[in-house]
C-alpha cells in the first residue's frame, strides 16, 4: 500500500506540472532554434539571385539598401509595443484589483470588462479604436492630434489591460491563504495586507507571464499595418511594390520575420529562465 497521498488510486500517481500551467509557457530545449529561419533566408536569397535577371542588383544588396527604412518602421513597432504595454499594465493593475474587490458591484463590473476585452479579437479592437476614436481631441484650448499609431496603441492596450487584470487575479489567488490570515492576525487592514504582504509576492509570480504577454504584443503590432499605420509590415509592402521584383518576395518577408524573431526570441528565453527560477514550489 502507498502512503496516503492526495489520491488513493494505486496506479495513477498525481501529476506535477514542472512549469507553471500558463498557456504560453516556453519550454527549455536544446536544439538549434531559429536556424530554420536563417537557413531559409540564405536559401531564398540564393534562389532569388539565380532568378534575378542580368543587370538587376543582387538580392542581398537590395535587402541591405532598404534596411535603414525597415529599421525605422520596426522602431515604431517597438515604440507601440512599449506604450501599449505600459498603458495596459497600469489600467490592468487597477482592473485586477477591482476583480478581487470585496464590493460585489465593482467586482462584477470589472469581471465583465475583463472578459469582454479578453475575448474580443485584437484586430476587431484595433478597428474599433481606429474608426471610432476622433482624429484629434480638444483639451482646454489645445488641439491634440491622434495619429493612427496612437489609436492603434490604445487598441493594443485594451486587450493587454484585460490580460494583466487576469494575471493579477490569478497571482493573488495563488498566494497561500495563510499569508492573509497571518496579516490579519497582525492587525493589518485589508489595504495594508494587499500593499505590504500580498502584492509584493505577486510581482514575482506575474513577471514571466507578463513577459509572455509583451512578446505577444510585439508580434501583434504588425496588425496596425491593416489599419494603415506606417510600421515595418506596411513599409515591407511599400518596398516590395516599389522594387516590383517577384524574386524579392520570399527573401523580403523572411527578412522581416527574422527581425521579429531576433527581437522576440531572447524575451522568450528570458521568460523560460525566469519561470524555472521562480518556480512556485
Amino acid at each position, binding site marked *: 500500500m502507498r502512503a496516503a497521498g492526495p489520491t488513493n488510486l494505486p496506479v495513477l500517481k498525481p501529476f506535477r*506540472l*514542472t512549469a507553471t500551467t500558463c498557456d504560453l509557457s516556453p519550454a527549455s530545449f536544446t536544439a538549434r532554434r531559429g536556424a530554420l529561419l536563417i537557413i531559409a533566408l540564405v536559401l531564398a536569397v540564393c534562389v532569388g539571385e539565380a532568378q534575378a535577371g542580368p543587370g538587376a542588383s543582387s538580392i542581398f544588396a537590395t535587402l541591405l539598401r532598404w534596411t535603414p527604412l525597415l529599421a525605422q518602421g520596426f522602431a515604431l513597432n517597438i515604440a507601440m509595443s512599449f506604450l501599449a504595454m505600459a498603458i495596459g499594465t497600469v489600467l490592468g493593475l487597477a482592473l485586477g484589483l477591482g476583480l478581487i474587490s470585496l464590493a460585489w458591484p465593482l467586482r462584477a463590473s470589472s469581471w465583465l470588462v475583463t472578459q469582454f476585452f479578453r475575448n474580443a*479579437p485584437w484586430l476587431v479592437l484595433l478597428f474599433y479604436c481606429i474608426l471610432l476614436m476622433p482624429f484629434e481631441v480638444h483639451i482646454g484650448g489645445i488641439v491634440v492630434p491622434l495619429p493612427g499609431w496612437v489609436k492603434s496603441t490604445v487598441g493594443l492596450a485594451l486587450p493587454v489591460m484585460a490580460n494583466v487584470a487576469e494575471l493579477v487575479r490569478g497571482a493573488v489567488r495563488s498566494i497561500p491563504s495563510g499569508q492573509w490570515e497571518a496579516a490579519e492576525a497582525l492587525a493589518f487592514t485589508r489595504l495594508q495586507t494587499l500593499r505590504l504582504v500580498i502584492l509584493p509576492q505577486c510581482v514575482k509570480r506575474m513577471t514571466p507571464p507578463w513577459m509572455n504577454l509583451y512578446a505577444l504584443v510585439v508580434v501583434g503590432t*504588425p*496588425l496596425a499595418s491593416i489599419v494603415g499605420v506606417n510600421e515595418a509590415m506596411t513599409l515591407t509592402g511599400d518596398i516590395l511594390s516599389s522594387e516590383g521584383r517577384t524574386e524579392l518576395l*520570399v527573401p523580403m518577408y523572411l527578412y522581416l520575420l527574422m527581425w*521579429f524573431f531576433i527581437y*522576440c526570441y531572447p524575451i*522568450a528565453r528570458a521568460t523560460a529562465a525566469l519561470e524555472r527560477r521562480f518556480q512556485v514550489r
Partner: protein
Amino acid sequence: MEPLWDWFRELHASTGIKLTIFYDAFDRARFVNGFLTSVRLMALCIVASVVIGVVGAWWQGSRLRFLRAAIAAYIEVFRNTPPLVQLYFFYFALGSYLRVTNDVGLAVPLVSNFSWAAIGLSLYAGAFNVEIFRAGIEAVPRETVEAAEALGYSRLRAYIHVILPLAFRISLPALNNNLVNLVKTTTIAYAIAVPEMLYVANQIWSDELNVPEMMNVLLVIYVALVGVVVYLMGRWERAMRIPGYTP
C-alpha cells in the same frame, strides 16, 4: 422572421440605429456567408492545429536528433514571429511560386486564400499546441510509461494508448486558452481578403456607413463565439475527467 426584420427597420427609422444586416436581404446574405466562412475557418484550424500538436509532441520525443531539432526550430520560429507576417509570407511570397496556368493562359494561384489562411493559422496555433502537449506528456508519471513498456507496448502504442490519453487531460486547460486565441486570431485572414466576418463587415460598413453598429455586432458575435468554444471545451474537460486524478 419577417416581423423581426421589420422591428429592426422600425428601430432604424425611430432611433437611427442602422442594422442593415437584419432587414436588408443582400446585406443579410453576405453577412451570414461571412459568419459561416469564419466558423468554417475556425473549425478547420482547431482540428488541424490539435493534430499538429499531437503529432509534433510525438516527434519531439523521437530518437532521431534531426526530427527533434526540426520540431524545435518550427516551434521557435512560429511562436516568435508575427502571425500576420507569416500569413503574408505564405500568401504573397510562397503563393507567388505556387501558380498554375489555366486554360485561358492566366496564372491562377494553386492554393486559395482561404486555404492559405487555414494553413498559416493552423501552423501558428499548432506550434503552441506542440508545446502544450509536451508539457502534458512531461507531467505523465515516469512509472506509468515504464509500466506500459513492461507490458510490451511499442513506443507508438504506448503513446497512443497510455501517454496521450493522460497527457491530453492534463493539457486541456492550456489547450483551451490556445484555441480561444486561435478563434480570435482567425480575424487576421481579413488581411489576405478571405471573405470572413470582419472582411464582410468592412464591406457592409463601407456601403452603408454604419461603422459603430457593425463594430458592436462584430464584438458581440466574437465574444459569443469565444463563449461557445469555452463552454464546449469546459464540458469536454468535465466529460474526460478521471475522478481523483486530474484536479
